[in-house]
């Protein structure tokens, strides 16, 4: 323990922590802007400057270690003046169109101005950079960028891609891809982790709200929506609910009130994905066990940011990817075939909207492969944030809605589908069903959770020995299935390098593009709660455990669609509608 003085108050704190923390622990709030707990600690904005007696200049509280005997002033005249000038300088080349900015009232720069009691705008410049870069997933508005570099940290240090970086110098500095190219011409995965950390309106999802309203308001169009598993544990935050609140029923009710025709559930398609992906894994494993050629480890393909990453950086490993489309694309394809036929609507007159915790899904729907019989599988993707905005725009009293169910025939799901929203979930869901199919027994773990792959670790692994298997699967007797799970592209890189080096011990790998999986995807509400990941994770597992059925292959609605339409997993119709192929993008930029 050390003792220091902050604002004339003697405080005792642990050695090694920053002045910012020492103050926080003692109830003293030092304003910050670029600092983000657990994400970004760089000292780039200088807003947290404090006076340390004996130091020549002001020190940034987020970077400076508290030391024994230090005397710190967080509100001296010098500090208050410096903070105000720093803020005013940031405003000087910031586009001040707050009223028409989508971060109005949720902007950290705006909130800081209020905290600092800034009431004038003294510095004017003509060098505001009016530049907008619209990619299929992410829109950059450089007139709003304050150069805090949180996005650079997210891209370079967390995801280890480094598409975004500081370019040029001085007044010309911009945060941009190399040579100031548009994002679409850089090898960007569109994961959107930069968007989630942006404190202002400089980075946001590319807007699909307008086109969705157009479809809803067109009487000739049948609008079909589906929300992803992680949306239900994030959306509540847009309406003041604590982080980690599930709002599944209210979300379904709100979607109906928006005026869409059918409210299906991506969870249903997640169960379907397990049937297809599980079967694909079984086929590959059986081939290998019987001495035939097949590519293992097989890697999951639900996360479009991950897919764009492997296509751009490890195209030689594409054969390892499962050929399954992501769940919402499967549902879109079936809505415009199976369901359209059933209700006698032309697929061209159906408009499918996916509500996703993801920005990369906006790019995914524009892929050439994501079409069947000449029509796109999914027409629009709204992020969780965009859905929240639409619900507010429509004047729906979300907090007082009675919960409703999803619509048949693509609305009923098992708990295995819920956990698609969190790292380890797709793998656990797949193993629950594959194990049951091979052995005829339930997975021998409490609550069907595989403890080694539950949680927020970067790389998690487990192995599972198959014993007393059913006669049809006798080749698996005694076989030890080795699995690995990672979330975030930095972890994916480690697992891919193992495959390249020929040292990967695994048979099946789950990769989610965003750290912690979809619960913290690029389309989820921005949160300042440092424990947001654990709280949303817990909410997802609670959804799972609350379901009557917990294994995808037992979903009666899925059993029924195979009987009525798809015939069998991995069959001819499945291959046409539910599977896809990938593109080598290494030479694209």
């Amino acid at each position, binding site marked *: 323990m050390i003792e220091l003085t902050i604002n004339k108050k003697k405080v005792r704190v642990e050695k090694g922590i920053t002045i910012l923390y020492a103050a926080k622990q003692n109830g003293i709030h030092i304003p910050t802007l670029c600092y983000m707990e657990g994400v970004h600690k760089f000292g780039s904005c200088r807003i947290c400057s404090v006076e340390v007696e004996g130091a020549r200049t002001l020190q940034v509280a987020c970077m400076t270690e508290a030391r024994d005997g230090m005397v710190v002033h967080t509100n001296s005249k010098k500090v208050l003046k410096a903070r105000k000038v720093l803020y005013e300088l940031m405003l000087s080349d910031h586009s001040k169109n707050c009223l028409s900015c989508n971060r109005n009232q949720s902007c950290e720069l705006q909130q800081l101005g209020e905290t600092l009691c800034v009431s004038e705008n003294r510095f004017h410049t003509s060098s505001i950079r*009016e*530049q*907008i*870069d*619209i990619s299929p997933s992410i829109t950059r508005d450089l007139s709003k960028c304050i150069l805090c570099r949180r996005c650079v940290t997210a891209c*370079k240090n967390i995801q280890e*891609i*480094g*598409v*975004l*970086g*500081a*370019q*040029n*110098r001085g007044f010309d500095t911009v945060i*941009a*891809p*190399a*040579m*100031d*190219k*548009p994002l679409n*011409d*850089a090898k960007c995965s569109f994961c959107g982790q930069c968007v989630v950390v942006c404190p202002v309106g400089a980075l946001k999802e590319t807007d699909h709200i307008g086109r969705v309203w157009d479809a809803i308001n067109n009487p000739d169009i049948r609008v079909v929506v589906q929300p992803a598993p992680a949306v239900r544990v994030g959306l509540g935050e847009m309406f003041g609910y604590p982080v980690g609140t599930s709002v599944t029923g209210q979300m379904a009710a709100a979607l109906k009130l928006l005026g869409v025709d059918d409210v299906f559930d991506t969870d249903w398609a997640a169960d379907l994905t397990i049937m297809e992906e599980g079967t694909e894994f079984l086929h590959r494993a059986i081939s290998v066990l019987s001495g035939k050629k097949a590519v293992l480890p097989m890697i999951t393909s639900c996360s479009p940011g991950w897919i764009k990453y492997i296509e751009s950086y490890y195209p030689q490993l594409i054969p390892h990817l499962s050929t399954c489309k992501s769940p919402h694309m499967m549902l879109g394809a079936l809505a415009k075939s199976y369901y359209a036929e059933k209700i006698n609507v032309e697929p061209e007159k159906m408009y499918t909207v996916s509500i996703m915790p993801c920005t990369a899904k906006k790019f995914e729907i524009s892929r050439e492969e994501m079409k069947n019989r000449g029509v796109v599988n999914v027409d629009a993707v709204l992020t969780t944030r965009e859905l929240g905005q639409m619900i507010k725009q429509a004047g729906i009293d979300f907090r007082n809605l009675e919960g409703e169910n999803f619509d048949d025939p693509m609305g009923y799901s098992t708990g295995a589908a819920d956990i698609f929203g969190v790292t380890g979930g797709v793998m656990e869901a797949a193993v629950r069903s594959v194990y049951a199919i091979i052995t005829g027994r339930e997975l021998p773990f409490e609550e069907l959770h595989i403890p080694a792959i539950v949680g927020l670790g970067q790389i998690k692994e487990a192995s599972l020995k198959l014993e007393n298997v059913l006669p049809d699967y006798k080749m698996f007797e005694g076989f030890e299935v080795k699995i690995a799970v990672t979330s975030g592209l930095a972890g994916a890189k480690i697992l891919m390098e193992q495959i390249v080096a020929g040292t990967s011990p695994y048979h099946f790998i789950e990769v989610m593009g965003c750290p912690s999986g979809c619960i913290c995807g690029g389309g989820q509400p921005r949160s300042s709660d440092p424990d947001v990941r654990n709280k949303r994770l817990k909410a997802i597992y609670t959804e799972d455990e609350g379901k009557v059925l917990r294994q995808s292959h037992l979903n009666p609605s899925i059993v029924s669609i195979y009987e009525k339409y798809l015939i069998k997993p991995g069959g001819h119709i499945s291959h046409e509608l539910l599977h896809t192929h990938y593109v080598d993008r290494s030479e694209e*930029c």
Partner: protein
Amino acid sequence: MTLTKKTPQKLPDDHKQKLEKIAEIIAANEAKESNLIMILHAAQGIYGYLPFVVQSFIADKMRISVSKISGVVTFYSFFSTEPKGKHTIMVCMGTACYVRGGKKLVEGLKKHLNVDVAETTEDGKFTLSQARCIGACGLAPAMMIDNTVYKAVTPNKIESILSKY
């Protein structure tokens, strides 16, 4: 303003050989990130300038992101992403040269060569550039052409100086 994709520049005939030489430099520096500026310096010496293709080549070889390379290249005025002329004219715009007519000298050169600063003449002979201070304040206003320093240059001396090249 919306960003549009730039048309790729035409590559020199000996592009591949030049990249091989750059690869040798990277290998000699053990692809260390701490040697990046030295590597870029050498690469510009070999290639003449550092267009995006060269930056991405270096990024791949060094296993660092191209935005990082481009960040360094665009930060330092020494590096150029456009092809340079046969000779580089560098006009000093440090305080001493500036107050003694550096600005007029640049204007004169712009008019004479029919280019802007950081551009190259149509015949590929001269690239016009500015420096903050070349350390020859006693000779103000000074300019350099390649490695030769010219002192007390006034616009009326431009023609006779350039005719030597």
